[in-house]
């Protein structure tokens, strides 16, 4: 077990390291950051001064070293678009909003998705099964941004029941969470259904039935627990996907989260913030996947040994 953990940890560190290099290089590959800061009235002196100030005249390797060193200290640069606030502060300010949205969507998907998927597997061919498969199909086929716009149109504009955007009370959560919720419910339903089907087909379930165990106990005690393992571990990594992939939903609903921060900073060429947000989000993503993998290996010993 420990060997597995240390192996995955090393992989994670390498991935993070490579990611930081990619982010760093990409930022510098396109467009000269100094030109974007200067106006048409700036002189050559200004250009030299700013270049020195930002440390852009040093060799690239040294710049990267400084970047990495500062990052590990917690200093991820300052925003160059607007008010010069430290990038990390901006991220930490907006992160709770994304987190809350993802949590709400996660709870919804657990409460609706798991029962739906399990029941769909247990009662194949029933109306519930058809409904679950329909929801899973829709969740895969709907573009997130369009669904958000449609919901916004019907509930905010036509029916005037809910606010169109912004962040505040419970009412503000409903539409974005519903949009995100559909996709998460679809994924969880699909997974719990296929997982349950696989478990119901396995040897030990057949044995339990032969033994004479009542069908109810077979399903709800034995099959359910085993089928939930991959589902729960999947939701861990899916959680990270929700946070990082929420860019589109956050943009549609003007949700003040880090997805929208990433989008805005990329569009504004706000260099330091863009680097910081991407680094933050990918680190989160990689970390979440690592935790999920370790959890999965802990619960299912087969994974540790086959994953050479």
């Amino acid at each position, binding site marked *: 077990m420990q060997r597995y953990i240390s192996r995955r940890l090393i*992989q994670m560190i390498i991935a993070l390291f490579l*990611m930081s290099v990619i982010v760093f290089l990409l930022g510098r590959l396109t467009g000269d950051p100094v030109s974007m800061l200067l106006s048409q009235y700036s002189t050559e002196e200004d250009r030299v001064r700013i270049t020195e100030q930002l440390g852009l005249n040093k060799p690239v390797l040294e710049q990267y070293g400084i970047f990495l060193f500062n990052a590990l200290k917690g200093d991820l640069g300052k925003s160059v678009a607007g008010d010069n606030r430290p990038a990390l502060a901006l991220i930490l300010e907006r992160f709770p909003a994304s987190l809350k949205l993802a949590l709400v969507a996660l709870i919804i998907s657990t409460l609706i998705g798991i029962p739906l998927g399990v029941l769909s597997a247990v009662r194949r061919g029933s109306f519930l099964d058809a409904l679950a498969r329909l929801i899973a199909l829709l969740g895969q086929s709907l573009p997130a941004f369009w669904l958000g*716009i449609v919901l916004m149109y019907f509930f905010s504009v036509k029916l005037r029941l809910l606010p169109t955007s912004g962040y505040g009370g419970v009412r503000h959560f409903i539409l974005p969470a519903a949009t995100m919720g559909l996709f998460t419910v679809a994924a969880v339903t699909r997974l719990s259904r296929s997982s349950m089907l696989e478990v119901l087909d396995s040897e030990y379930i057949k044995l339990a039935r032969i033994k004479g165990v009542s069908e109810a106990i077979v399903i709800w005690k034995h099959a359910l627990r085993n089928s939930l393992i991959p589902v729960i571990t999947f939701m861990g990594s899916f959680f990270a996907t929700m946070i*990082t992939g929420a860019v589109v939903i956050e943009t549609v609903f003007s949700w003040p989260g880090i997805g929208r921060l990433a989008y805005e900073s990329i569009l504004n060429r706000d260099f330091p913030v*863009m680097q910081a947000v991407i680094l933050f*989000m990918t680190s989160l*993503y990689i970390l979440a996947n690592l935790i999920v993998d370790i959890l999965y290996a802990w619960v299912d010993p087969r994974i540790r040994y086959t994953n050479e």
Partner: protein
Amino acid sequence: MLFNKFIIVIAVLIWFILIVTALLAPFLTPFDPKVGSLGDRLKPPCWQNGGSSAHILGTDLLGRDVLSRLIYGARISLLVCMLAIVVAGCIGSLLGIISGYLGGWVDIIIMRVVDLALSLPVILLALLFGVLFGPSFSNIILIISLVLWSQYARMARGETLKIKGRDYVDLARTAGCSDASIMWRHILPNVAGSLIILATLQVGTVIIIESSLSFLGVGIPPPTPSWGSMIAEGRSYIVSAWWLCMIPGLAILFTVLSVNVLGDSLTELLNPALRREYVS
């Protein structure tokens, strides 16, 4: 169930219509999708008040015919999608087969890269590359391929590993075939089946990625129509001109829905038990 077959037939029909209209776009569009007449802005579809049969689905903010843009958008989306999948599939499969067959340090290096690529969030990376390299037709294809190739590599490697130990591979090697020719003539045809299934399952995802990127402004640049950017443009007018958002969105929905239905039926049909191997 009869209902299921009915749905599959509809899905095939939708895709058939889609492909035909995409191919014949220049002959089918009554108006120029890129240029509009400002005098005809924001006309509603023909079944509403104020609509005319000249513009069946209405016009957008610049007076461009929505139907024409829809048809051209189909063409562009399908083209981008197919090309991206082909590029990603070829590169990914190649790397996967090489990695699986040769093993050793080649395998380790390629798989590390694949693991890294798979551990990165998709939309974020696509967004980043999209903004940095600028929106253009070829860039979009490259970007989507970049986030897609690793899945093919992983699957190709897995399938290659399964086939590596088969008798005909050993025989070919004994007969003196080079590694390259073994990979090309023996491994590839047998691996291709599951890769093609993967490709068909990905079409829907790619269409949604492309339209999301276009929606965010880093996809296909205006004035070329793309369903995603049509929705983005129509967003400001949703209260007065609902059709600008609804119609392209429905187009995306039905397209992706059909391909997913077809993909699901395909996977059910082509169970591994039914796959035949080519022992040439």
